[in-house]
């Protein structure tokens, strides 16, 4: 960690507001005193285990549960047929499709849920799964997404009435005719098939829940690994027909989400049903394999990219044709009007004349999902496409990729900038960020070093990625999930002694909400962050809102927290005017206190005002006692953070092993609340990016068997694969956000994979290589060097 201007947080230098501050949540997490779902123990609690299909596509001929039922510690064995009797065998997905909770007719992907056992302990539940006998009649499998729309392809979703193929949707954005026209007159057109393979967020904590249905009151309490407790509550109410006021969702400490804990999975529904039927609390905790093989994956796009430019490197247009593998059920979690998420920002950070995208999404015999893994609703794919194809153009023009980007950036005076696909970028100043990254990297010297090494036959690559994200979903007129608008509430109470609690609708999974949101309120009210508790994750104790994913917490809830604090401050100002016997207009706010204009000696602190608000004596006319407020914030636009990343790699010419030597990341997320937390988020995302670029992939064989069912087979990077991250920043505030902040949570995950891949491909330039697909394992790099590059899917 270098190139940061702030001094490290130290004891005695705690900011009242923004600045470096150790995370408030860390003492309990570091000491092992966190409270995760699997830590929850309730009297009489039973344990649930799920039987999963060993095959990818088969009709269920028969299920015999008698031996499992006879296990002495088994309480219940439930199959899809049992759920069907209750009308619960199928549930809606977040994309208006349906997904089976337990298979009734056939299984559609390997490891699909077929039955569950509830037993007195976790071991017995798992043992009893071995006693269930299922007969499968095998069906042909679609493992290769490219064959999903073949005329003779087996129809996976014959449960959908009238469905005769595996087509899910076609989607289009931009203008085809004008784009084609620009391509026809362009000097240079470069095409490349660019694949973003299926990857998995693989959070440290797998999914889990404890369901407790109280028989008399009908109250359901669900402790659950959810990034969106309020949205889940509403969906459970709609699915299970339970009254919403009788449902309480509690998300305790969450060990990483990355989008994988946005969907509702069959396991949660099974646990609720089990508790409902049995009348006892029921715990379900997924094991590592189950997490990898069945919960939300990400990406799986085959993108044919094309870029048109003048011969001197002015980019004119981009178009792409995408084949999207959505697995057996369309379980994508994105705003409902955006079936491809925010892929429409594939025009990147460049001022184009035209752009067009056509996409086709299909069913295959693979696990459902689609946007999980820190992707800001498919922006990961979009950024990878544009940043890869721009490098392909640089290759064809024999132009420096940094120079090519600098030549084509949207200029600062063009903001707000509407892209050719209709996105309105709120603010940006790209060139300084790019120049800063190049300075930090010593770009010119790196190119010199590379030239010398190439003379000696050594392989060194320098990769650049410049990304613009679109985060903070979103304006409720455009964005909803299953009809729920993507606005977020916030409540703030200041206690008589000037301590406060702030209640959020979003939910941390490790992002540091308990610190960041205290700092936002502290900045507005002058109350020290340690005097502000942040309450979140419990639907009974927090206002409604859509949760934490897509880097939306600071853009949406952060705005709500600032505005609710300002609402409290406005009231405090009126109370202060009474205390100081001055008119409201004559009061000036200096962080933490009001004083009479021109007379700083006449002042009252926010703590004095809090006591007065709750204390004896009259308040100004029309002012109620107490010092609290509530708000629901509906963003007017998304926020558009951006960044310039430079990666330096060395490749062993004989073994083709890639070593990431350096990584420089300059991020601009507008106003920074806690630079230390921002750096932490960036560090994590950069490691994610190295992982995806070099080793991660959920692979399948031709029979649809998942080949990445453990962390031995699905590799995630360790510290040994990560260089010392060199981070820096610029600050371009968002003009429409109350404090000018933009999201940062996913920037590095989105921006880093193309930088790593571009570096590897740059290293291979002496071999005439223009493109190679992820994951760039030593084997794939070596084959690329031999001219035998094969697509991963």
């Amino acid at each position, binding site marked *: 960690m270098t190139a940061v201007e702030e001094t490290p947080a130290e004891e005695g230098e705690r900011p009242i507001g923004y600045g470096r501050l150790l995370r408030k949540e860390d003492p309990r997490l570091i000491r092992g005193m966190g409270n995760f779902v699997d830590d929850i123990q309730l009297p009489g609690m039973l344990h649930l285990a799920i039987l999963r299909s060993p095959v990818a596509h088969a009709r269920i001929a028969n299920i015999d549960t008698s031996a499992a039922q006879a296990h002495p510690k088994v309480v219940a064995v439930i199959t899809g047929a049992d759920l069907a009797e209750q009308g619960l065998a199928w549930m809606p997905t977040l994309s208006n499709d349906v997904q089976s909770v337990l298979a009734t007719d056939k299984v559609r992907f390997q490891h699909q849920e077929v039955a569950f056992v509830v037993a007195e302990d976790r*071991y017995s539940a*798992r043992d009893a799964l071995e006693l269930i006998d299922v007969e499968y009649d095998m069906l042909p499998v679609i493992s290769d997404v490219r064959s999903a729309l073949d005329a003779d392809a087996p129809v996976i979703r014959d449960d959908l009435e009238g469905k005769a193929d595996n087509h899910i949707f076609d989607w289009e954005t931009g203008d085809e005719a004008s784009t084609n026209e620009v391509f026809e007159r362009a000097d240079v057109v470069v095409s490349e098939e660019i694949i973003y393979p299926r990857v998995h967020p693989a959070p440290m904590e797998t999914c889990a829940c404890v369901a407790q249905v109280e028989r008399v009151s009908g109250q359901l309490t669900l402790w659950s690994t959810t990034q969106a407790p309020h949205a889940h509550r509403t969906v459970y109410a709609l699915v299970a027909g339970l009254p919403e006021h009788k449902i309480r969702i509690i998300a305790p400490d969450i060990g990483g989400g990355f989008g994988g804990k946005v969907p509702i999975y069959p396991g949660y529904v099974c646990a609720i049903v089990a508790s409902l039927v049995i009348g006892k609390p029921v715990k379900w905790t997924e094991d590592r394999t189950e997490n990898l093989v069945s919960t939300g994956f990400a990406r799986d796009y085959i993108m044919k990219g094309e870029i048109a430019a003048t011969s001197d490197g002015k980019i004119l247009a981009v178009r792409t044709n995408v084949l999207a593998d959505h697995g057996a059920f369309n379980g994508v979690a994105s705003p409902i009007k955006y079936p491809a998420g925010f892929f429409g920002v594939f025009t990147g950070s460049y001022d184009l004349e035209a752009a067009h995208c056509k996409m086709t999404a299909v069913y295959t015999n693979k696990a459902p999902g689609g946007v999980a893994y820190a992707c800001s609703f498919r922006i990961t794919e979009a950024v990878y496409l544009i940043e890869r194809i721009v490098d392909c153009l640089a290759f064809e023009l024999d132009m420096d990729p940094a120079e090519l980007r600098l030549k084509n950036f949207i200029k600062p005076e063009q903001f707000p900038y509407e892209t050719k696909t209709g996105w309105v970028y709120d603010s940006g100043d790209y060139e300084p960020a790019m120049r800063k990254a190049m300075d930090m990297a010593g770009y010119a010297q790196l190119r010199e070093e590379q030239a010398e090494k190439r003379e000696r036959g050594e392989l060194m690559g320098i990769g650049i990625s410049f990304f613009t994200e679109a985060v903070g979903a979103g304006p409720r007129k455009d964005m909803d999930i299953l009809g729920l608008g993507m606005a977020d509430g916030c409540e703030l109470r200041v206690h008589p002694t000037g301590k406060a609690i702030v209640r959020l609708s979003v939910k941390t999974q490790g992002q540091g909400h308990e610190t960041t949101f205290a700092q936002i309120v502290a900045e507005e009210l002058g109350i020290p962050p340690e005097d502000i508790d942040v309450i979140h994750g419990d639907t009974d104790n927090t206002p409604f809102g859509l949760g934490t994913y897509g880097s939306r917490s600071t853009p949406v809830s952060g705005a709500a927290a600032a505005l609710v604090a300002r609402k409290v401050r406005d009231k405090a100002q009126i109370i202060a005017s009474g205390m100081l016997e001055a008119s409201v207009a004559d009061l000036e706010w200096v962080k933490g206190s009001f004083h009479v204009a021109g007379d700083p000696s006449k002042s009252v602190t926010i703590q004095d005002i809090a006591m007065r608000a709750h204390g004896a004596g009259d308040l100004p006319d029309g002012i109620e006692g107490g010092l609290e407020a509530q708000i629901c914030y509906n963003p007017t636009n998304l926020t558009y953070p951006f960044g310039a990343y430079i990666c330096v790699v060395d490749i062993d010419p004989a*073994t*083709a*092993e890639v070593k990431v030597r350096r990584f420089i990341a300059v991020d601009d997320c507008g106003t920074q609340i806690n630079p230390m937390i921002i750096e932490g988020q960036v560090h994590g995302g950069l490691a994610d990016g190295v992982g995806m670029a070099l*080793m991660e992939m959920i692979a399948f064989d031709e029979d649809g068997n998942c080949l990445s069912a453990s962390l031995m087979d699905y590799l995630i990077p360790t510290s040994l694969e990560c260089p010392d991250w060199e981070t820096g920043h610029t600050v371009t505030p968002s003009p429409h956000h109350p404090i000018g902040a933009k999201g940062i949570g996913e920037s590095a995950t989105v921006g880093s994979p193309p930088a790593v891949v571009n570096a590897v491909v740059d290293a291979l330039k002496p071999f005439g290589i223009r493109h190679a697909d992820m994951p760039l394992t*030593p084997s794939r790099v070596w084959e690329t060097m031999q001219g035998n590059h094969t697509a991963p899917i």
Partner: protein
Amino acid sequence: MQVPAPFEYERASSVSEAIALRERLGEEARFVAGGHSLLPMMKLRLATPEYLIDINDCTELFYINEEAEEIRIGAMTRHRELLESELLAQHFPIFRDAEQVIADPVVRNRGTLGGSLCQADPSEDLSAVCAALDASCVIASTSGERVVPMGDFHVGPYETAVGPAEMLTEIRLPLRPNGSSAYHKVERRAGDWAVVSAGAAVWMTGDGAIADGRVGLAAVGPNTTNIEPVRQALQGSAPSEDLYEQVGAIAAEHCSPVTDQRGTAEYKTHLAKELTKRALRTAVARVTSTTNGAMTNGAG
């Protein structure tokens, strides 16, 4: 949490007790040493032994001893001990090379030499190391001990010469003058199993030729822990890049890797050659650097 099938657990505090338990409990009993291969397999229910005999109390098997003509290593010696042993590093630097890239510190703190050899995973590193060093294995039973050369120890993937009522107790590494060794591994990520790895040991004559040399490969199919034609090609040859090239090609010819998530068969074959060359080059350089200094028994 992945949970194993039900099993019974016994704990042995001596070799004789362990063997007696094994004899009594029969074929469905398994010894557990470090447990870093067996327990994951049990959690995945790929292994379902009825009994586990825990031998972590067999303290008599924790040692690295230098004898007159060999180094003897107790079967329960942990990876970490092998990594940190100055005695091994002095005589057989291949051990430290390999141990630095075996799994991670958590695994190395628990995993054992005997456990690694008995697991007989074709991707496992220490089998190639021991084969390159011409090791032999001491297998004990109630009727006494027998010594099996490394070449006969592995019967096939996941199969060894250790019988149902026997126990691997010791690994013996012959000390020969004027030799050294090295290990090279390619992995997709730190701690991953080898894509391919190669170990080499060479012993030199006084006039700088190779008196004897062995190469062991891992993760490229069966019967590659000691490739006899490699040995024949090395014997009596003067070390040179041409020789390494030639021997690397022989090594590549004698492996039969399969294409999987770690890489294609072609790539692995290429690595077999490349890593053989590198291991030989390093091993010879180590002998030479020692010979130029003070000559010792072994080298390092």
